[in-house]
């Protein structure tokens, strides 16, 4: 098994670790760095629960080779809080109690954060595009959509 010394910029911190060379990014985030807010749902880029931000863009981390993202700014759900506390999207989800089991929620918050970082007044279609590929089995969709709508109103 070949190991590589890598360094990752994650949630504003530089982390140097030695990893199996083909380790996927989600396993580095969860297993090596202990950031378990990013969830593994399918490992097939079909469910959205492993979404993270790479240089501000939403990416699904379950099949990405970790070594390829050493020079990027990686942000997980744990890194969204700012000096004032929760970011606007987290705050809206908290205010609306927009989750049931919560397994899919961090991926959705990541996608909506990426959307609102670029566009404070996204159209319904842009919101739908951002949510495309995020699956929820509990049926929290209606309250999630209410939380997102509140971000536009505010």
């Amino acid at each position: 098994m070949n190991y590589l010394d890598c360094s990752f910029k994650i949630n504003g911190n530089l982390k140097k670790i030695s990893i199996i060379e083909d380790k996927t990014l989600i396993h580095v985030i969860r297993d090596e760095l202990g950031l378990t807010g990013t969830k593994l749902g399918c490992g097939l880029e079909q469910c959205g629960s492993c979404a993270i931000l790479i240089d501000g863009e939403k990416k699904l981390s379950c099949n990405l080779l970790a070594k390829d993202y050493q020079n990027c700014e990686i942000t997980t759900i744990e890194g969204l809080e700012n000096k004032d506390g929760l970011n606007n999207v987290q705050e809206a989800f908290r205010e609306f109690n927009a989750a049931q089991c919560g397994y899919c929620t961090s991926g959705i918050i990541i996608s909506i954060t990426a959307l609102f970082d670029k566009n404070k007044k996204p159209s319904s279609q842009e919101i739908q595009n951002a949510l495309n590929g995020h699956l929820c089995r509990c049926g929290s969709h209606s309250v999630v959509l209410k939380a997102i709508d509140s971000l536009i109103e505010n």
Partner: protein
Amino acid sequence: MNQFNSGPSINTYNKLSHWFDFSNPGILKVYSGKIDIGQHISSTLALIASKITEIKYDQIEIIKLSTDISPNEGITASSLSVANSGSAIKAASITLKINFINYALENLEIKNEDILFENGVIKDKNSNKTISYWDFAKTDDFRKIIIPENFDENSIKKINYENNQKIELKTINDIVTGKYKYVHDINFPKMLHARIVRPPSYHCKLIKINEDFKKRLVENDITLFVKGSFVAILSQDEFLVTKFLELAKKNIFWEEKQQLSNENVFNSLEKHEKESLLVKSGGEAFYEEIPEKKSFDDPKIKSLSTIFKKSYLMHGPIGPSASCAIYKDNKFTIFSHSQSIFALKYSISKFFDIDPNLVSLKFMPGSGCYGHNGADDVAFEASVIAKEYPDRHILLKWTREDEHSWEPYGSASLNKVFGAINDYGEVIYWSNEAYSDTYLSRPSDLELTNFTSYKFLTNNFAKTKSKPKTSAHMGIHRNLDPIYNFKETRLVKNLVHDLPLRTSALRTLGAFANVTASESFLNDLASIKNIDPFDIRINHLDDERAIDVLNNLKEKMEIFKPKDDSFRGIAFSRYKNSAAYCAVGVELNVTDDLEINLNHAWITVDAGEIAYEDGIKAQVEGGFIQAASWALYEEVIFDSKEIISKDWDSYKIIGFDNIPVFTTSVIDQKGSPYLGVGEVVAGPTGAAISNALCNALGQRIKILPFTKDNITKELLN
């Protein structure tokens, strides 16, 4: 105001210390035997306790279920969590409060009018002396108190509270910050990650493992675990086990003892050996002769018959099932998201033939799932592996393919419905024959074979036959008995044997299929006589609460003008004819490409006294969304070799792009028993969509899901 019944849990757990822990000053810890599967039960129970004890909601914590310390309230299922645990905690809270006030009055030697009661502390206005629940909990008086099984009207009147509180969910802050810990996130020193190497299908015996592959595992410090035909690989590095799992599948060989059937499952449901039971009014099933179906020659009586079909459905949690187990000092400690935590303790102890006290089950959250998914299996499998590696935690996770292919599905089913309506619009005859595999194969100490890995561990691939359950509304015949006053009914439960796929409890059991079929068929009977869908229902109901729910729905739907080219449908059900009432309206449109867009959904629910209104809304809207997904998209595909629906591309579920606008109304019946709401909406949702679709197409589509393929086939027929 009625007498309040404390519910079944109080029969066994009638001391305040069974439900409350006051050991931390300023904090009330509450025990419950129910688990939080995303239905907000922990927040709801905390709110119930807060409303009555007047301790602030934020100062109330719900203790996670553990078989070591929690009351055994059975399975978290059947919409009974608030009905059972909520009622028990309400009873305990009322008992606590009444006794505490009496104690304070006596010990502070004051009168009722001189007390100030704030956040669990009573203060004498005159002397400023105080006494708190936490003081009271240290007394012998507290320890001696027995919670009554019933409360009379006068006791209840002493307790005032409102039912419209807005609260922050106990779980939400940790969820939105990624700190909420699921069983998948457990980490212990030297913990081993495990994956199971599955054969292609249910009936496969292990033949050979490639020797070169075994060497590669050793070289990479990966452990191979084999017991019978049960094979797993383990490593301290989780990535390594996932990486070698695919390789393992190519290097392990199986003998297929029996193929899956590739016969059309609806043909199998009709043709295979079955046990037929007569279901009587009240919903119980009996081993009695089934009467012949009547026929009607009178021209004034119109009759109709239809066969409704529903495919296999899967639970499909977004996070596959997982469990962590350790065997240490001859004892098991198992972390699990099973809904049957206590049953699991007894099943696992039975398998290992040890004292149940040597098995401790601790609830850790899993991914949302309503029913018997892989949670019990994976906990059992983790314990089997842990037994072989004492003193080390084993974290076993199912893969997406495991969950899709190996979970116990909701059965495919048929409903043969026949009915007759007279000139006065009265339904004078109603026959409904349900055909299905079992909905009840949760493992227990008596049914270890219900663990999917049991046959692989024992190499015993003999098929077991399910036995029909006869209690009211149990399994296949849930909500088969119509709630309406039909003059004569003929209801038959057919438990069909030797069907291809593993099945068990999925949200609502048989009620989704039965209510979807019945409430669609009722519309078809009504349309023969041009009777309005609301009228046909209300005309056959006596129960005022049922009628109020329907009238409320009608009123709410009339506020909104239908969109152009859209069509509406309604349906109604009372879950198990004894729990919550729910009426659903749907407005949808059908594209030229036969895609169904849900525009608006109206839900009116009466769940007795409101425990937590936003929680009820979340449950019924979530239940609608899941049932809409079943109705529109879901179908487990398989062939003679294996399950084809291995992932989310081959098993489509609803996305954010087809979520309707909701108008949800909750009718409060303050003082009435809590009636759970986790399942009541599913049946009426299936039927309301079916009825709206029928209005859109001018023809009844009788096979679920309503995909383009199925609609096309039905239209061509």
